[in-house]
């Protein structure tokens, strides 16, 4: 009974695809599901709604009173020469099978031909090098596995062939979207980890029959292995390149061990950690750490520059001194005198000089006068104005 149900469902689905009343028109459908068997009921296409929807192409055109539903005899009748065109094609509306020389019909020959071709096609199987196929008997009993190459099996309903690309590397992204996946690390911090599992089918037979839901199993195992691996690391190790490589390696090994224990028929090709980030909630604080590192480096660089300047200055000054001192040593007294006079020249050339004979003479220092001059000069030279000294009244 169950198999009948199955067949009917399958047929129903196939009908739904082809049915001219298929869900989109809405007019012909009268609540009998997706148009599957609506055609047999008689009520479906005869309702008024039919006029809006597409018409049944298998029925004769209107004008012959209330339309009956299509039944099997109508369909056979319409195949005659006077019936409406069944299929489009170059033969036109008066499609007819040519007669055999003996006057018999080609129809049986054609049917036998089509059936045998169909049988042959369903018996021969070309399995590509990357594929495996499992053959099951009618009813689902496992028969054998087809390896790549040309294979012959029993025709379709007796042997069913289910082929699958076993080399194809499949990817599972965890998490699938962009949401955070927080994993607790060994030092009880949280890391936002996203990773990809690459896997393929090792043994199609196990993959098909052993696990209820291999994909969910792979994801669960990955989740479990990843959390266990991250929990063995500290947060900083999780972020470091070496730590990540180690986690990838451990997750892969653990996953393979578990999946083998489940006899899942799956090989894990690799685990790739896309990123390990701090959780979004504390990202700023983490960024501030690297900013702080930059700041510290900047401070040190500034110090190094200053240090360089100080040292260069010291070296320059002492070198100048050394040079002069070298000369001084050759002729100490003369050099000393020369330096003295040269300096005094430079100094006294630019200053106001007053020579005062001391003793008995009361000197009057015209300080306001001097100040006035001092004010005028920078103004005349258009230099930066010096702060105005308070005038003495």
């Amino acid at each position, binding site marked *: *009974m*169950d*198999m009948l149900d199955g067949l009917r469902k399958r047929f129903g689905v196939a009908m739904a695809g082809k049915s001219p009343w298929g869900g989109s028109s809405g007019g012909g459908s009268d609540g009998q599901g997706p148009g599957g068997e609506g055609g047999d009921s008689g009520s479906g296409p005869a309702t008024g709604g039919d006029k809006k929807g597409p018409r049944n192409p298998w029925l004769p055109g209107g004008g012959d009173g209330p339309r009956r539903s299509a039944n*099997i005899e109508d369909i056979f009748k319409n195949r005659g020469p006077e019936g409406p065109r069944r299929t489009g094609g170059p033969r036109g509306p008066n499609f007819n099978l040519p007669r055999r020389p003996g006057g018999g019909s080609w129809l049986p020959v054609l049917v036998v031909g089509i059936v045998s071709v169909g049988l042959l096609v369903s018996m021969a199987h070309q399995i590509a090098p990357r594929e495996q196929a499992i053959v099951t*008997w*009618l*009813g*689902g*009993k496992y*028969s054998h596995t087809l390896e790549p190459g040309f294979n012959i099996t029993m025709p379709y309903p007796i042997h069913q062939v289910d082929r699958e690309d076993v080399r194809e590397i499949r990817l599972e992204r965890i998490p699938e979207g962009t949401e955070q996946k927080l994993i*607790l690390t060994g030092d009880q*911090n*949280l890391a936002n980890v996203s990773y990809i599992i690459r896997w393929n089918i090792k043994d199609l037979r196990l993959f098909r029959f052993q696990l*209820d839901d291999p994909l969910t*199993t792979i994801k*669960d195992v990955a989740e*479990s292995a990843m*959390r*266990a691996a991250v*929990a*063995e690391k500290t947060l900083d190790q999780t972020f470091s390149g070496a730590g990540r490589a180690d986690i990838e390696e451990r997750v892969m090994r653990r996953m393979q061990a*578990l999946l083998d*224990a*489940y006899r899942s028929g799956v090989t894990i090709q690799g685990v790739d950690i896309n990123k390990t980030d701090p*959780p979004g909630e*504390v990202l*700023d*604080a983490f960024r*501030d*750490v690297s*900013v*702080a590192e930059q700041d*510290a480096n900047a*401070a040190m660089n500034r*110090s190094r520059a*200053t*240090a360089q300047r*100080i040292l260069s*200055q*010291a070296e320059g000054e*002492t*070198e100048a*001194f050394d040079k002069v*001192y070298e000369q*001084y040593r050759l002729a100490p007294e003369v050099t000393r005198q020369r330096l003295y006079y040269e*300096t005094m020249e*430079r*100094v006294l050339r*630019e*200053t*106001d*000089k007053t*020579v*005062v004979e*001391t003793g008995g003479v009361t*000197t009057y*220092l015209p300080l306001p006068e*001097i100040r006035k001059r*001092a004010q005028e000069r920078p103004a005349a030279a258009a230099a*930066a104005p010096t702060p105005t000294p308070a005038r003495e009244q």
Partner: protein
Amino acid sequence: METLWQDHKRSIIAVGVLLVLVLSSLFVVPEDEQAVIIRAGQPVSVVNRFAPDRNFGEAGAGLYFRIPVVDRVQRIDRKVLNVTMQPQEVLTSDQQRLKVDAYARFRIIDPVQTVRAAGTTDGVIRQLEPVLISVLRQELGRRSFASLLTAERGDAMVNIRRKLDEQAREYGAQIIDVRIARTDLPEGRPLESAFVRMRTEREREAEAIRAEGDRAARVIRAEADAEAARIYANSYGKDANFYDFYRAMQSYDATFGPGEGKGESSIILSPDNEYLRQFRGQR
């Protein structure tokens, strides 16, 4: 067509009835299912029962007959099945809350027991979930937060598996494996405080890095100053007397000499001044 119908009405009907009869007494057991035949409410036999030593294709999947109407066929999964636990909050021995979700993989090894105790495969899954939850809570509640995060999990899982397996046998199931998929901090306070702790830890780290940078910068400066002092001493120390004179000359130049931004200076010289020694013409 119509003549065919007219002529063979009876035989067509007979064939149809026979077909329906045959089809309703046939049933199919695929490789991944076991079937329990129930006659008058009692399980009488099992088809394609799971046995660890038999490979696929040898266990008895295929086409079978039953007595229509009398026999009912209950299908039970033969694959490894999955119980997933909804995330649960668990209180650890050190009074921390942890959100845990776990899964168990099991297989039905005694379909008759399953049919008696739970009816269907889904029934088993529904029954096992609360058991998994309670076993997990019991077992994890004895452990500390830190130990749950690390490898000690393995030991806990063995206990949980054993306990769950004992209960699962009553439903004809065998537990293959129990794993904790996720251990998370519960939303709200615990998660928030973890974030706060992480944040403050990083703030402290940033502060330390900045201070360290500051310290290193100062040291670099001081070292340069010391080195400069050494260079000066090394050079000037050769003749302190001459240095005094030389530096004084430089200083006069800098103080009174020509240059931008210097205050105007007036110098009142006494004729006794050393500079004016020759001015007097004395010898």
